């Protein structure tokens, strides 16, 4: 029993959402209360329950974390992840059940909690450290490390309100990163800062994990979870639906996300409102497959294969028929155009009637996010039918590069390889090997 770091037993949390107007006001005033009481006196409907909604943010959750384990908590928004962390951080009390934590707990629900803009970097380090539970002796001892980690050396005596947002976040994370609890509870703190700093943060968490500390890590970032955690739990609507090895749980989560998605997997284009009025209806159907013969529901894992199947009807035999798919991101930017037009051996629709063209994408390397697909049908290079933004699909995160991190800029990932030109490529590296002409410019074989 002694190697258990965290035990959660039947933990439940009930939230009551107030009446609509109270919710809108965010807080009650006595006047509201009095008005409500008076009104309910004269109203026949005295059932309070009709005016308040109760829901279980957490519903009977039990699990155990052993010492030194790094456990990811995944689930969609509203699944109860934050509530779980808030209870385990003792910010809010559970309604039922209990949890026991063995060891000193440090919880990071955000970075920079309690930072005051008027105080200098130095002062904020001490203040924030004290808020996170460090003693001032401990902070003094780690002060230089914190400043070095945050890369703000020359501004340490400047009020943080003069900092750039990047500097602010770096300093905030630096303090948090030097917390040395036995049980660390982290919530999405990686979603801050620039790419380079995020990498540094993730590295620091890996380091904490590798020092045998127990970590509970909540994130939407599947790549980070896969990279960091050896176990994971999957929450859905306040219930723990699955726990186990990270890869199993992540697969389960992605599968679930795919199945539950409400985006269209097969769209009837015959009377689609997505067709501008001027166009003649020829396109009839669009289907999306993640794998051969498996109809997708609109979510696809990054790097996974994807097939678009487009059906159309012609009244007569047409020699040159081309289909084009245009992908726009959530901001409406065109990120990709795929067309049969560009292919050397274009498919040819024989005769009149219904035809179906398929577009196979062996590995969809768009960055995670929502994308809208538009379909264009051209005859002899003239656009005759189109349906715009007719299908939405979602690219889900996966550990594409195997390093647990994904870029935050750009649109795509591509296979690529990095190495030091002074040294042999990684697979041929020998200790003590000196610069070799052979390695210069030698392309990576992937």
């Amino acid at each position, binding site marked *: 029993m*002694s190697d258990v770091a965290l035990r959660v037993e039947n933990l439940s949390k009930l939230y009551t959402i107030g009446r609509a107007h109270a919710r809108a006001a965010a807080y009650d005033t006595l006047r509201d209360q009095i008005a409500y009481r008076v009104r309910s006196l004269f109203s026949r409907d005295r059932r309070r329950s009709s005016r308040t909604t109760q829901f279980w943010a957490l519903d009977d959750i039990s699990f155990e974390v052993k010492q030194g384990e790094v456990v990811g908590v995944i689930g969609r928004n509203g699944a109860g992840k934050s509530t779980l962390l808030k209870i385990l951080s003792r910010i809010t009390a559970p309604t039922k059940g209990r949890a026991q934590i*063995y060891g000193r707990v440090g919880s990071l629900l955000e970075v920079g909690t309690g930072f005051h803009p008027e105080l200098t970097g130095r002062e904020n380090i001490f203040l924030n450290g004290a808020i*996170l539970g460090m003693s001032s002796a401990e902070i003094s001892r780690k002060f230089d490390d914190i400043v070095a980690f945050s890369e703000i050396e020359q501004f340490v005596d400047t009020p943080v309100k003069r900092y750039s947002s990047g500097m602010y976040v770096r300093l905030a994370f630096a303090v948090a990163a030097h917390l040395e609890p036995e049980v660390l509870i982290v919530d999405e703190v990686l979603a801050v800062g620039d790419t380079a700093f995020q990498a540094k943060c993730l590295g620091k968490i890996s380091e904490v994990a590798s020092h045998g500390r127990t970590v509970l890590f909540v994130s939407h970032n599947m790549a980070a979870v896969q990279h960091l955690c050896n176990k994971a739990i999957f929450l859905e609507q306040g219930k723990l639906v699955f726990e186990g090895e990270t890869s199993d749980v992540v697969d389960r989560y992605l599968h679930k996300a795919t199945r539950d998605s409400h985006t269209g997997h097969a769209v009837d284009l015959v009377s689609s409102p997505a067709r501008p009025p001027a166009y003649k209806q020829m396109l009839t159907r669009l289907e999306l497959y993640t794998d051969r013969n498996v109809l997708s529901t609109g979510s696809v894992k990054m790097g996974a294969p994807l097939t678009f199947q487009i059906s159309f009807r012609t009244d007569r035999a047409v020699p040159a028929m081309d289909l084009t798919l245009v992908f726009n991101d959530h901001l409406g930017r065109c990120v990709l155009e795929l067309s049969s037009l560009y292919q050397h051996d274009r498919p040819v629709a024989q005769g009149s009637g219904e035809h179906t063209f398929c577009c196979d994408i062996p590995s969809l390397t768009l960055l995670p996010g929502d994308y809208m697909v538009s379909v264009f049908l051209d005859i002899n290079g003239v656009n005759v039918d189109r349906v715009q933004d007719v299908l939405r699909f979602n690219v889900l995160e996966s550990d594409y590069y195997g390093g647990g991190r994904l870029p935050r800029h750009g649109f795509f990932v591509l296979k690529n390889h990095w190495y030091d030109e002074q040294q042999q490529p990684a697979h041929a590296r020998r200790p003590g090997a000196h610069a070799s002409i052979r390695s210069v410019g030698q392309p990576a074989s992937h």
Partner: protein
Amino acid sequence: MAVQRPAPDATGASSLRTPVISIEPSGRLLSLGIGELWAYRELLYFLAWRDIKIRYKQTAIGAAWAVFQPVLTMVIFTLVFRNIANVSSDGFPYPIFALVALLPWNLFSGALSRSSVSVVAESNLISKVYFPRLIVPLSATLSGLVDFAIALAVLVVLMAWYGVTPNVHLLTLPIFLGLALTTALSVGLWLSAINVRYRDVGYAVPFLIQMWMFASPVAYSANAVSEKWRLLYSLNPLTGVIEGFRWALLGVERPDPRIIVISAVVVTILLVSGIVHFKRMERTFADIV
């Protein structure tokens, strides 16, 4: 059940939390958590220090406000109550008579107005980090002590100017100082917890303080209150505090001991009930703040 694992502290730092943390729906009621408060004393210090540090930030004359505020009030009081209303000052120069009362009064009113909104003001901390919540109104109460010390220095100068020397009663001053702070904290505990649910507190407190000042012998002497109302009047703990200050610093007639006792009893009741109410409410702070 699990054995309590001793907290091995690799960092050598003092462990702030107990090795086993048990999280349950209802905490032990009436448990003050004094030990935990003590463990978090540095946070209390840092929060009070932060309040003091930022109080006069981006002002032209900075901490000089701590001097000007009581002095200007004293001047206004002298003009209004002495020169116009001709209020009695028990035979002392009115400016000193007023300033001696303004010291504890300003400490009290500042502490009360800060602490009553403190939990809401620190909602960001409360919804993100765990620490004993009592620290929030406590630090808001204590952060007024620096201003008090500055004003006390002004009083010393003024007393020297008027040639008023305190006697051995001066040694009792900390008692009355403690009484003033405890009163502010007790009421602050009540109001800060209520303010989480009902923001009306923020609007009501300025009026409360204004009325409270007129109900306290700040601008006038407690002797001006007729004998038959005395006991009722002394239900206000500030009566005892201010009378005590005048006795300790100026050596006015010794206040009726019954006033001090009544004040102390009232404050004790307020404090205990304030803590119980606060502890009962604090578990829901993060959910409704």
